[in-house]
């Protein structure tokens, strides 16, 4: 494969969660045991679908449904930030999908049997697009913590799931945003699968007074960084 370029930089393993993470029980039967084959980045990996609000309508305010009747219960918050790559280039007009539990810690999902109330005015799905500088923003309610069966008395910290696309399918990513000061963070196996402390903490949103709207809602900033491009074409399949 001497004629193939590595389009995007490979991550430092400490900054990404290993697939084999024994403290997270669901990984046990799901992580590949064979070594991953390193895939060179061809056009398939350096190209990406194009999403537009015309075909993928925006849902920028999760606290009201389409009919405009009724408000979701809970603490209204504004969440926003910047989507860039590792070189600081904004990811423009990118689709950002989010989903989350309601204020009581219950997902609007048939599989979620947590004994907490559903909110008829909260679906828990958002979809927004970044602007030309990579900024995105939506309004929601703060998601509640919820129990899971990973270990005795296990609770997931408050979190929102994020799904992201860049300009290449190699940048595709799903992650989670957490909240500052959450006492469950040090106890959460999923959050703590990321070995590097700084990398972990980058998954935690920051309270932002600038984004906070007086008399209305607190603001949280959550920036997301997708992989940057390799600086120079690789001559060879090997790299370090």
């Amino acid at each position, binding site marked *: *494969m001497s*004629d*193939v*370029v590595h*389009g995007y930089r490979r*991550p*430092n393993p400490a*900054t*990404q*969660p290993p697939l084999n*993470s024994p403290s*997270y*029980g669901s990984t*046990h*039967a*799901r*992580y*590949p045991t*064979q070594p*991953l*084959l*390193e*895939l060179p*980045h*061809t*056009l*398939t*990996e*350096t*190209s*990406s*679908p194009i999403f537009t609000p015309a075909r993928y309508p925006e849902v920028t305010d999760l606290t009201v449904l389409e009919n405009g009747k009724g408000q979701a219960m809970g603490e209204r918050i504004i969440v926003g930030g910047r989507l860039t790559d*590792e*070189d*600081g280039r*904004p990811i423009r007009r990118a689709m950002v999908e989010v*989903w989350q539990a309601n204020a009581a810690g219950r997902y609007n*999902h048939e*599989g*979620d049997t947590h004994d907490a109330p559903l909110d008829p005015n909260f*679906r828990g*799905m958002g979809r927004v697009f970044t602007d030309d*500088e990579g900024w995105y923003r939506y309004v929601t309610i703060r998601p509640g913590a919820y129990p899971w069966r990973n270990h005795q008395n296990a609770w997931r910290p408050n979190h929102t*799931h994020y*799904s992201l696309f860049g*300009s290449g*399918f*190699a940048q*595709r990513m*799903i*992650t989670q945003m957490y909240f500052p000061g959450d006492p469950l963070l040090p106890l959460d196996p*999923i959050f703590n699968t*990321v070995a590097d402390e*700084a*990398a*972990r903490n980058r*998954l935690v949103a920051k309270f932002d007074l600038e984004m906070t709207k007086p008399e209305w809602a607190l603001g949280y900033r959550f920036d*997301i960084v*997708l992989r940057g491009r390799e600086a120079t*074409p690789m001559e060879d399949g090997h790299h370090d």
Partner: protein
Amino acid sequence: MTEATPELAPSDALVASAHQTAGPYWHLVDFPEWADTTRHFADRLPEGAERITLAGTVKDGKGALVTDALVEIWHADPSGRYPDQNGDPTAFQGYGRCATDKQGRFRFVTLKPGPVPVGPHAGGNAMQAPHVALAIFARGLLQHLSTRLYFEGEPLNATDPVLKAVPEARRGTMIAKPAGNGTWTLDLRLQGEGETVWMAV
């Protein structure tokens, strides 16, 4: 002012964000129509297009069906082209998303991709066999798993640079078989016997 991409000052602080699992409740972003990439086209398919179905199951290391996976496909159009980011957003694009069902099955309707050049740095026009990138997200997968689906019987399979790098004994885990009526099947195994060749993308 040029129209060059504005760049922030170079910063060591910018490191790619960590992946996290999609968890079991990702269906809030499941839109079943996305499993049909031809949904906007009806009968106005691109010239020479062949509508196909890609189907299979996902199993875990114990052989149990994975019923909560998010499967995505990404592939070129029938002429082997990918969309231009500044091009027509309504042109065909081979992106689909599908939830595995109670039997661990996924099913996409799409157009068969053409052969794809390796890339602009390829030092020539080396061609890849027709293929579909597959991404699997699920509870228990802290990062998504990636592989490729190839089509049995394609002459270019013999020279495809990615397939060639796969040990011969395991190549079959990436090659879909025809099941009639334009359907191609490929079963995926996350772990264990017959484990799919997963790739570090």
